């Protein structure tokens, strides 16, 4: 069986009079919060807003002219609430930009974290209630939000092979995953060149000539400084000859 405690506190006689101490704590708290200079803990919410830090993760926002339509945010979203849609913009023309279903978004901030140009930001906007579900699908125009320092997510990372060295900033050359071409499989369709959002792929002549069609053979050449590791070329390749080589 269970033996009883030998803690001296427990041996103390606790008559009903001991109720007075909790009552004293409660009364003291009541007086304390009503004194001038001691604000109550609650706020009059709709009229008075709580102060939130700039890093607060509300709904995602976008800066349209920074976005390069690389679709990294689409791929990383755990709830798949981002979709690329075509918009007409007065300065940008016809472009694809992300549309976010805020009703499904769980405000994780992953999209802003992977965005290579910091076009996707986390805004401190959290009052998102609306009457219909359609209102919650924010098209790129509605998704825009004025930028302020602290809204974008930057981080510093270390490579496992370089644990002691200085940390590299997000998007720097060391951290980049690069594209590798398996040249034997390539059929020179130049789809990767057309898809690349940054123009990092250039089809270049190899100097060889195809024996059947008598046309010069072209192979893609990747410019790693421009590449943002979005894997769109890998996805579009019909012959699976592209792979990502991860920075180690």
């Amino acid at each position, binding site marked *: 069986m269970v033996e009883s405690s030998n803690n001296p506190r427990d041996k103390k006689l606790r*008559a009903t009079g*001991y109720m007075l101490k909790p009552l004293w704590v409660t009364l003291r*708290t009541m007086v304390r919060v009503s004194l001038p200079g001691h604000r109550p803990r609650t706020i009059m919410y709709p009229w008075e807003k709580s102060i939130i830090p700039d*890093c607060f993760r509300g709904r995602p926002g976008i800066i349209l002219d920074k976005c390069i339509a690389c679709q990294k945010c689409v791929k990383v979203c*755990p709830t798949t609430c981002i979709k690329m849609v075509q918009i007409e913009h007065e300065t940008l023309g016809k472009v694809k930009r992300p549309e976010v279903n805020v009703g499904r978004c769980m405000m994780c901030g*992953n999209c802003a974290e992977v965005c290579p140009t910091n076009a996707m930001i986390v805004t401190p906007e959290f009052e998102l209630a609306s009457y219909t579900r359609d209102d919650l699908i924010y098209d790129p125009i509605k998704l825009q939000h004025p930028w302020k320092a602290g809204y974008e997510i930057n981080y510093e990372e270390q490579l496992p092979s370089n644990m002691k060295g200085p940390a590299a900033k997000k998007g720097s050359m060391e951290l980049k995953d690069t594209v590798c071409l398996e040249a034997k499989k390539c059929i020179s369709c130049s789809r990767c060149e057309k898809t690349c959002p940054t123009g990092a792929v250039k089809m270049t002549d190899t100097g060889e000539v195809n024996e059947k069609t008598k046309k010069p053979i072209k192979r893609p050449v990747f410019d790693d400084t421009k590449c943002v590791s979005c894997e769109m070329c890998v996805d579009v390749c019909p012959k699976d000859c592209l792979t990502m080589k991860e920075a180690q």
Partner: protein
Amino acid sequence: MTEMWVNMGPQHPMTHGLWSLRVKINGEIITDAEPMIGYLHRGWEKMMENRDYHQIVPLADRLCYASSLSWSHLYCKTVEDLLELEVPERAQWIRTLTLEIQRIASHLMWLAAIGTDLGSYTMFLLPMREREMFLDLMTDLSGSRMTTNYPRIGGVRNDLPPNWERDTLRVLNLFEKRLREFEALFDECSAFLMRTKGVGKLSGPEAINLGMTGPFMRGCNVDFDLRRDDPYEKYSEVDFRVCTHPDCDSYARYRVRIDEMYESCNIIRQCFQKMKQGPVRVKSPKAVPAGRAFAHVEDPRGEGLMYLISDGSDKPYRLKVRSPIFVIVSGMPAALIGEKVADIPAIMGMADMCLGETDR
């Protein structure tokens, strides 16, 4: 002499979350009990099989709303074990101290809940007020109050913001004062003592047999804590006491959690003293090599465990979660049988139910 089954839940003030307790009563005495869960089942483990490794981190947060960070940390730790990735020193310290902040916030949530369970609204309001300070710290650190998405595979999301250390130490100093106030509010209150002392007796060997872990088991006078007995992160380098209590009743479980909050404050202070500048995040590969790994940590509620099977692709083949509350609540009939119906909230409340991780 008739016995009958009574449903407590799924909509009952005693059930935190959606679950139901069927009790068989003979007059006022409980003769049998059967917890029923499944109202909140989301298929979490299956869902993880079509998410890639980096997407799972924010979803692991959703396992438990009251201590999200410990679950995303557990997930990251499991993947790191399989990758054999070395986490930078500073990231380990930051993880240790954020886990302790999360533990305090979670225990305060429990303290508030036990207040309403036992019918005292003041006992609800005061811990909730203190919990807000810790949630504010988490907001400053990670940008979110509860679902922090803070640990990353290979470190943590960002370094500590400026002045965060100062703020945390101030909060701790204030909190320790408030914790003494809580002790006056709970321990000196004869109504609270009458309701918790001597109910829900469960001896240590019984608790071990039922597979119970965490503060509930330590409240059954079993001296076991994964933070000390299988140290992870930096727990081996900090001094702390594993809190147990010999009474083995509901009051003992309450005492264990209060003592743990004092110990958590100590751990956080030690972390700040021993922490050095350095990197906080290592780049982790997308795909994880084929293999199996498991990690277990001392969640605020007990032993949380994740078992990961990888087939070498960028998505897990299987991710199994062992939730502490699932085991504790399954063993609860042992503590309930023989007690009175009115004592059920005082006994069940000490389990600190969180249905998010129980049902998954």
